[in-house]
């Protein structure tokens, strides 16, 4: 054990670094799960079936209109009521995946619809089935078109993982670790600026990378 000191120690830095790691783990895992789920929903919405369009449209509408804090607590207490109480970390992970799947579904639908109709008709004219056309023509073009939007969604997800503290999830992520340290050393600005620097550095770097990608893709389209 370390002695109780009221200044910022190396141990606190390690604690915050662990919190940053938990943030990244949460972002990546719920990002992957949410993208897979959102891809299926977006694909379903882009087909010509009206039932699927409206049912999943309602799903996306509900998820985008309710604050994330309320979604966390609602899902957690619903699982408890149903008789299967989950570890708050996992229930938070599942809620984040469901939350981001709503946004990813819209982005995927936009990507699928961004492929020019002439290209699709040409593919079908060459004898490709719907699945052939989807996986070999629509998906590569659509993915490149909406890649920057998807990156923006993942960055938003990383910023939203800070809300999982409201469930009391056990390995604390970055903002919750900062809060824990602040209650001891009573120097909020220092610790919060440190945590903010982490979020800012990561988001800014990835945004610059995605802007570079978009510029190159734009040049490749025109050149």
């Amino acid at each position: 054990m370390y002695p109780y000191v009221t200044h910022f120690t190396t141990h606190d830095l390690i604690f915050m670094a662990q919190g940053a790691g938990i943030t990244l783990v949460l972002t990546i895992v719920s990002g992957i799960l949410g993208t897979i789920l959102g891809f299926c929903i977006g694909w379903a919405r882009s087909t010509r079936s009206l039932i699927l369009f409206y049912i999943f449209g309602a799903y996306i509408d509900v998820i985008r209109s309710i604050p994330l804090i309320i979604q966390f607590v609602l899902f957690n207490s619903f699982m408890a009521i149903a008789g299967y109480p989950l570890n708050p970390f996992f229930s938070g992970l599942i809620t984040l995946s469901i939350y981001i799947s709503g946004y990813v579904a819209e982005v995927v639908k936009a990507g699928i619809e961004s492929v020019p109709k002439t290209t699709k008709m040409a593919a079908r004219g060459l004898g490709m089935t719907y699945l052939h056309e989807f996986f070999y023509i629509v998906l590569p073009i659509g993915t490149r078109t909406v890649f920057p939007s998807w990156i923006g969604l993942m960055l938003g997800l990383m910023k939203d993982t800070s809300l999982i503290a409201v469930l009391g999830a056990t390995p604390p992520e970055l903002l919750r670790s900062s809060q824990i340290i602040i209650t001891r050393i009573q120097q909020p600005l220092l610790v919060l600026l440190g945590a903010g620097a982490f979020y800012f550095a990561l988001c800014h770097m990835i945004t610059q990378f995605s802007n570079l990608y978009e510029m190159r893709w734009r040049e490749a389209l025109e050149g």
Partner: protein
Amino acid sequence: MFDYTFHWRVVLKQWPQLLKAGLLTLEITVMSILLGLVIAMVLAVLRKSENNTARAMAGMWVALARNTPALLQIYIAYFGLGTFGLHLSPYISVLSAITFNNAGYLAEILRGGIDAINPSQRQTALGLGLTPLQAYAYVIFPQVLKVVFLPITNQIILAMLNSSMGMVIGLQELTGMTTFLQSQTFRPFEFYFAAAVIYFLVAKIASTAASLIAVRHFKG
């Protein structure tokens, strides 16, 4: 599976409290959007100016607002500013943090809108003898409004969702009031479900009204 009896009577008894808190949420949302729009217009204009310092400062505001979590911004406003002796109430700190956040996102939206307009509009307006302020107020921003109306509606709903984070610092807006009430009655699911329904209805009414206005005033 469900050996749990739902007790909705408790929620119905506290309905006036929930609605009052909902009004506070609406108040925070509307005020933060209006203030944020004013600041965002200034930021969007500054980002296009020739003055390097102005451009850098506006760019810094937008980058900070967009790349940090809203919860962190609320914490800095409530806890962090105390280091400088500036002790804000929960209401003012949530309002200022969400205004800061909104200003950043709205400045990006307005910048996209200004870019979508023919740049010769600005040059012609300045060439006709309008001051820059008049050029932006009478020529550019009315055209920008048509382009950015739907993204701004989106941002209004996001501002309402961000206001729910006021719960963490003890502000009694809808989420905070719901947490307070469910801690008294031990019925979290019923209360949070009611709060979710209120949020959903408000967001639905706002987006439907926005699309009706868009169709009527801007012809789609």
